[in-house]
């Protein structure tokens, strides 16, 4: 077996184990299923009421999708950190399995969780009036892009999880970096109204690109008066979103794998 096929096979087995674990953990199930519902309803009605009703709710959904998918990377952080604190990693490392498997298995099981979250959020979205107005192909593309982005975020989470000294630290560190990234974007407001430097950051923030792509592909328009992001990333949103996700993967996959080797052999 080549390194890659063994990595995928063993990663699949670890993902199976992670999902079995998740299914039996009530806290976790709550976070994975209830949180997306809460986010859609909360943001849709709390912000939606003030910022433009139905039109705003439709605009907002893509932002909530992306934010929730990105926040799911915290599962990767906590899951990995938890495994590292326990003896189970020693067992894995003493087995003739791929060195990639623990990380790939974790990011894969979290991808499944994100798919579930997307399904739940889409159903909630339909309830609050969001619609897919573009073609089926575009919609499929939008979902694939969301999952790719979530997968990339998971690998950043993997590195954080491997670096955190304890599960408690992992828990807060896993979310902290996501707040500025998800808010300094066009998730909730048109980035066009932000002050100078923030506006530039928002425009080049991959979050904005993914959100903009999803809005474009679903055919969800910004309500009147909401200045959309401008510039090259906004004009080439899908390309930029794709490229930035792949760049994140290209950087964080090898980095996390190297970190895993070092951390696990302490």
């Amino acid at each position: 077996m080549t390194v890659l096929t063994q990595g995928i096979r063993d990663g699949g087995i670890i993902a199976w184990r992670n999902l079995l674990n998740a299914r039996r953990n009530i806290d976790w199930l709550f976070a994975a299923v209830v949180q997306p519902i809460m986010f859609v309803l909360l943001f849709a009605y709390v912000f939606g009421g003030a910022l433009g009703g139905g039109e705003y709710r439709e605009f907002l959904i893509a932002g909530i999708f992306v934010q929730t998918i990105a926040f799911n990377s915290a599962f990767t952080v906590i899951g990995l950190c938890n495994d590292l604190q326990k003896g189970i990693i020693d067992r894995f490392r003493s087995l003739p399995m791929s060195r990639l498997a623990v990380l790939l298995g974790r990011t894969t099981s979290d991808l499944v969780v994100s798919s579930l979250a997307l399904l739940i959020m889409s159903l909630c979205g339909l309830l609050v009036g969001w619609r897919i107005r573009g073609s089926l192909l575009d919609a499929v593309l939008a979902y694939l892009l969301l999952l790719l982005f979530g997968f990339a975020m998971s690998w950043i989470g993997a590195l954080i999880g491997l670096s955190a000294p304890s599960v408690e630290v992992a828990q807060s560190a896993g979310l902290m970096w996501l707040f500025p990234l998800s808010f300094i974007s066009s998730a909730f407001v048109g980035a066009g109204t932000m002050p100078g430097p923030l506006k530039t950051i928002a425009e080049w923030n991959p979050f904005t690109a993914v959100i903009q792509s999803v809005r474009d592909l679903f055919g969800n328009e910004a309500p009147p008066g909401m200045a959309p992001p401008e510039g090259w990333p906004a004009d080439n949103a899908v390309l930029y979103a794709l490229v930035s996700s792949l760049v994140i993967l290209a950087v964080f996959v090898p980095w996390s794998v190297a970190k895993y080797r070092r951390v696990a052999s302490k």
Partner: protein
Amino acid sequence: MTAAVRAEGLVKTYGSTRALDGVDLEIPTGTVLGLLGPNGAGKTTAVRILTTLLRPDAGRAWVAGHDVLADPDAVRRAIGLSGQYAAVDEQLTGFENLYLVGRLYGKNKTDARARATELINRFRLDDAAGRPAKTYSGGMRRRLDLAGALVAEPAVVLLDEPTTGLDPRGRLDTWAVIGELVADGATVLLTTQYLEEADQLADTILVIDHGRVIASGTADQLKTEVGGERLEIVVGEPAELPLTARVLADVGAGEPSVDEQHRRVRVLVDAGTKSLIEALRRLDGEGVAVLDVSLHRPTLDDVFLSLTGHAAEEE
């Protein structure tokens, strides 16, 4: 007979602590090596190096003919490890834990399932096979962990303190399993703080302290090295202790030690039963009431004390 495990000059330092300070060891195929030492002696570090979990700062090691540094994957295919802390997944059932390990050893689904069932039976976990491991008692968890080490029928099994934290029954169970392993031809490296355990299970014992091997040999050899037998006399009255000690000092080959609480005097003797008879005869002549008398070969506790100057279970 070739060595199943061989290590030369293993060194591992953590900051200024030398966890291992030049350890050599060799385990002939099909035998049990007991690595005996107190907490922090370096036992776990040695196991982690031999199981490829840790790279030594210096030295080399081969397990089942494979270099642990150059070919760790081949080593992993040949070994089974049961660590100091049971490495089981709490949320998975006993069966699922063993199935998972089987799959990760490269077995297909059918084989992994069959092997898991077999081990569940062998380790008397049938009733609990479908329950998450978090509901298991300490002893059951240990058994499950040990079963996990045996999934691939490894040629070399490394057990890091396999009975720490077990009740006497769990300990006897574990000893029985290790006995079966060796009967099946496996080579076993076992670390322990319990002298009795090493005495019971190991063909060869390596005594290790502060990262160094301070003695090695069979249990018998180690005991002989420490010298002859111990004569132990318990008297009825505390007032008789000084006199008893004087008598034993004459009869014995060393300085007697007096345990006032138990009204007991012990001394090293070199003439065995002759010394015992001589001591009793003289004590009788002095009118001392002897309650109990025994002559025994040194235990590994005595060995450890005389080698390191401190008892094995200290620190």
